[in-house]
């Protein structure tokens, strides 16, 4: 591996986090380089989603140890909006419905916030409409959704498309997609996956959090990590996902608990 030549985008070191005094992350280590796609798998409650929220800066989680570096920035010092402007994007597992707030306005305000940071010019209402029309094609989304309230009354698939649309508009350096495949039928999954593939570049990185192999059939990861009890237990290539699909998580947890006993 020629990692020294590519740029380190994300570096998570010995990360510990609590929610309501309950430890959820117990020492996560992860390095993500430009151009890479990582998949994080694991059972429910293993800490995958927490990891993604902690990277994005969700206020409900308390960091009790470790660091997260994003390029040259210490992410833990930054507010969620500052992280987003730097280019960290979290695709939500359950995108939030916000009645009354126009989707179009929301997209425009957030796009401009990111553009301002990138020193790109601000888009006015008309320019933005053109810009968004372009991006809509990537996710094959009906423009009618722009005029509705943010995610309100969207079906599961529409919500996920709206997430990928945001990703397309914000052009992040690191996209973390938290169970973007859950609740999607096969056609919607393909559209979403095609969008993700299209947006991946040699200068950006993607982390996919998922339960299932089927997303990884559409988006090929460079690395697959398995999480349990708030830690990454095993890291390997894409073949690990196939193995998990076949044999479940038990054997990995077995191996790792044996390891701990031997130590």
């Amino acid at each position, binding site marked *: 591996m020629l990692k020294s030549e590519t740029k380190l985008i994300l570096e998570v070191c010995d990360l510990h986090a609590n929610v309501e005094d309950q430890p959820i992350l117990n020492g996560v280590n992860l390095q993500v380089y430009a151009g890479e796609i990582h998949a994080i798998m694991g059972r429910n409650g293993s800490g995958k989603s927490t990891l993604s929220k902690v990277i*994005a*800066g*969700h*206020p*409900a989680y308390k960091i009790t140890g470790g660091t997260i570096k994003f390029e040259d920035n210490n992410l833990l010092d930054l*507010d*969620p*909006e500052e*992280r*987003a*402007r730097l280019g960290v*994007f*979290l695709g*939500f597992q359950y*995108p*939030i419905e*916000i*009645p*009354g*707030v*126009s989707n179009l*306005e*929301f997209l425009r*305000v*957030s796009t401009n*916030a*990111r553009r301002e*940071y990138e020193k790109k010019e601000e888009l006015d209402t008309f320019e933005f409409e053109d810009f968004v029309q372009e991006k809509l094609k990537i996710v094959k989304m009906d423009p009618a959704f722009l005029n509705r*309230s*943010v995610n309100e009354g969207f079906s599961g698939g529409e919500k996920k498309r709206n997430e990928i649309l*945001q990703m397309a508009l*914000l052009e992040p350096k690191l996209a973390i997609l938290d169970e973007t495949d859950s609740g999607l039928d096969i056609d919607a999954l393909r559209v979403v996956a095609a969008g993700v593939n299209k947006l991946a570049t040699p200068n950006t990185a993607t982390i996919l959090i998922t339960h299932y192999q089927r997303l990884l059939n559409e988006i090929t990861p460079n690395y697959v990590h398995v999480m349990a009890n708030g830690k990454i237990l095993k890291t390997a290539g894409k073949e690990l996902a196939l193995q998990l699909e076949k044999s479940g998580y038990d054997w990995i947890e077995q191996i790792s608990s044996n390891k701990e006993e031997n130590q």
Partner: protein
Amino acid sequence: MKTECLEWLEQLPSPDGVLASEQLIGRESLRNLGLPKKYSEAWRLTNLKRIEKILKLPLAQSNQYENSIDKNQWPEIPKDGVRIILNNETNYKTNLPNGIRFLSNDDIKETINLSHQSIDETNDWGVSVNKACNNKLLALKVDGLEEQSLEILIPSQKETLNPSRILLVLGKKAKLKLLQVIIGEGKSSNNNLIQIHLDEGSELNHGLICFGKNDSSLFTQACIKQNIDSKYELNAIQHGWSISRFEPRVFQQNGKAKTKLNGLQISSEKQQLATHSLVNFNGPEGELEQLQKSIAADQSHCIFNGAVKVPKEAQKTNASQLSRNLLISKAARIDTKPELEIVADDVKCAHGATISQLQEEELFYLRSRGIDSNQAATLLLKGYCQEIINNLPVAAERWQILNQIIENLNK
């Protein structure tokens, strides 16, 4: 307390005009009622000191109207729109669109008497004050199948008490979009009574914008009688009054009508805004959908009391009521009380109430897209208001109320 009321009644001009008999009724009931009392359930949360001030104001004079009203802030009337300005003598004779006409004095007498059944002024302070001192009435009838629209503007003169009254009758299958705008001025009080009769199959979209400022107060009562198959939709917004009390009362005479009540009150500084609604189903198969929202900022106080009565006659009623409240300051306060009284067994009735601040998850979602927390909060507040404002008749857009609200909240 009673004497203050009596003194006020003493100095009123003697009854005259088309409302002379109404004035007698109003004065008689005020004599018995006196000022509202703390220990009565309907007034226990009200800042009564501010109510007392109202009767100390002189009555507005219509000949003073031109000099004392600030028209600069009124948006222009749209090209084919009609605006009637109340308390301005000349405007009672505006050209009305085809399909809307002024009611004759005989019609007025008949209709006003009919509506006595739905207003119980003996128990009703706001209505009684209006009746006691008001001698002007705007009485309109809408007929035909074409949808009409109308704007009624009710300004206040500074440092006076401004009573006004509207009687609106929609004939069979008539349709109207009504925008009613009440504006408060410094140290003024506005008291508006609107009575609405909806005949079979008629539809009314009623927008009510009540914007006060600088120590102004408001009493506004809407009494709506609905016949079967009629539809009534109300979107009411209250903002900026030192004290205000809005009392919509819907009476579904024979059931089988649709009622939609949306309310939004946004209080800041030391304001106290209240909505006391009552929906009475008097026949089967009536429908109600009610959403009341409040935002309380600074040291303000928002009150909602929503009564729904479903008597035995009202089988197969379907009523839902939701009170959603945002408390955005530590010194603000919110009181909400849904009130459901049911004596029919085959009905669907649900109500709900929530009080919270802005949702953390919503804020985080916006922030995770690069929007800073102030801007995110503003977006959410706007969205919260927009759910109601969006339903106002189109004519309301020109009033740009959302911007004013947000500006005041960000002060």
